[in-house]
């Protein structure tokens, strides 16, 4: 049972970060960090850490890449800490927080790159399992949460305020809600996960910025396969729909918003009692950007997780 929980959590840990650039940068990770659809067993605690790298090197107008002279790549390196606790059989709570090692927008010579660094946002999520059928091996969960802009914002380097896309914090409160499903099969090593969630960023109204990111909808389908007791593999298809952003006077930013489809292979290794390691990558298979924007080229990362279930063996 705990092994099952581990598998679920690990594969979802790989999904913790999605970061497709909106406008000029590699974007803000943890766009649907709360949405991992696992449920943690009652009174169990899971602690995880993960690293993610993302690179954006191609500009898109619509669904076509643009060979532009003005474009320069962007990238990020990100660390995430997360803990999840099963309050009861039906209710889980998750807390997570991140740190940008770098969040970089390259610049032409002779200008140095714009590099943000520092504490990112934190998230708190509550998940409620409202349906479970042992007969059908199916369960459904609702989730809701907040992303809190506790991180570094209005960051300045060499006397110049960094662009909003390079700031480690998103700068705004984000409301999140979602529904997820898990489906197992009799005598099968396969398992299916489905997820639909939405994020509603609130207005950024700081000393320097007045901006609201567009709403975000995520849809993902994941299939996992247990190779043996140590190795589990997964493949995920993830669609993301971001609406237009707005700025001062409710002006809609036409060159904002996108929809993309990404594919993500993942591998998880259980190498010690209660410990697991996962590695993942993500590649776009379809990208459509409004106006002209820098698009994410790939993401990769790895994660480590530890289960603490003090009553499980009594």
């Amino acid at each position, binding site marked *: 049972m705990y092994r099952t929980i581990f598998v679920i959590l690990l594969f979802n840990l790989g999904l913790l970060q999605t970061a497709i650039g*909106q*406008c*000029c940068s590699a974007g803000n990770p943890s766009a649907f960090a709360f949405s991992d659809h696992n449920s943690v067993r009652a*009174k169990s*605690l899971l602690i995880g850490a993960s690293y993610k790298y993302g690179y954006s090197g191609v500009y898109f107008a619509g669904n076509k890449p643009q060979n*532009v002279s*003005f*474009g320069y790549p962007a990238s990020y390196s990100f660390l995430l800490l997360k*803990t999840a*606790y099963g309050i009861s059989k039906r209710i889980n709570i998750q*807390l997570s*927080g991140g740190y940008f090692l770098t969040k970089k*927008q390259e*610049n032409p010579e002779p*200008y140095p790159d*714009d590099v943000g660094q520092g*504490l990112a946002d*934190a998230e*708190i999520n509550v998940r409620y399992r409202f349906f479970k059928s042992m007969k059908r091996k199916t369960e459904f969960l609702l989730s809701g949460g907040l992303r*809190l*802009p*506790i*991180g570094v914002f209005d960051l*300045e380097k*060499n*006397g*110049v*305020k960094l*662009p*909003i896309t390079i700031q480690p914090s998103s700068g705004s409160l984000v409301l999140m809600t979602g529904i997820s499903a898990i489906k197992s099969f009799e005598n099968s090593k396969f398992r299916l996960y489905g997820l639909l969630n939405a994020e509603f960023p609130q207005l950024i109204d700081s000393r*320097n*910025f*007045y*901006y609201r990111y567009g709403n975000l909808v995520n849809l993902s389908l994941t299939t996992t396969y247990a190779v043996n007791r140590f190795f589990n593999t997964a493949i995920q298809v993830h669609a993301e729909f971001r609406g237009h*952003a707005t*700025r*001062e006077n409710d*002006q809609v*930013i*036409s*060159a*904002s918003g996108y929809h993309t489809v990404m594919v993500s292979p993942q591998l998880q290794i259980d190498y010690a009692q209660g410990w697991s390691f996962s590695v993942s990558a993500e590649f776009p298979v379809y990208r459509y950007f409004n*106006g*002209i*924007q820098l698009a994410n080229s790939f993401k990769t990362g790895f994660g480590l997780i530890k289960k*603490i279930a*003090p*009553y499980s063996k009594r």
Partner: protein
Amino acid sequence: MKSGLRLLIHSELLIFFLLISISCSKDKVELTDNGTVQIVSLVASDTILTAWIDTASVEIVATGTGLSYHWACNHGTIRGSGSTIKYTAGECCVGLNTISCRVSNDSSSVSGEIMILITSYFDQ
């Protein structure tokens, strides 16, 4: 074992809310202008730019000693530092944008701003 788990959870929550409280208590102290620093001019080489294509040079001239310059814009990118910077913006920043500069020394601070219009790359 049970108390250990509770301790761990409480520690996690404590760290979490501590981070929030630290973040929410940012210093907002502002220096006031006591007259020792004055802006003479704040000008841009061009105030209408095409997104992705054009760049404006923005220069501030101020009087005073030991001056430091702090630039910011609500949309777009500032390159360089000091009394003269370059401003450019992508298609995401189409509209009327504000570039501000705060000049300060040990005893005073004064700010100025200039507006630059970014037009669409697709309208060129």
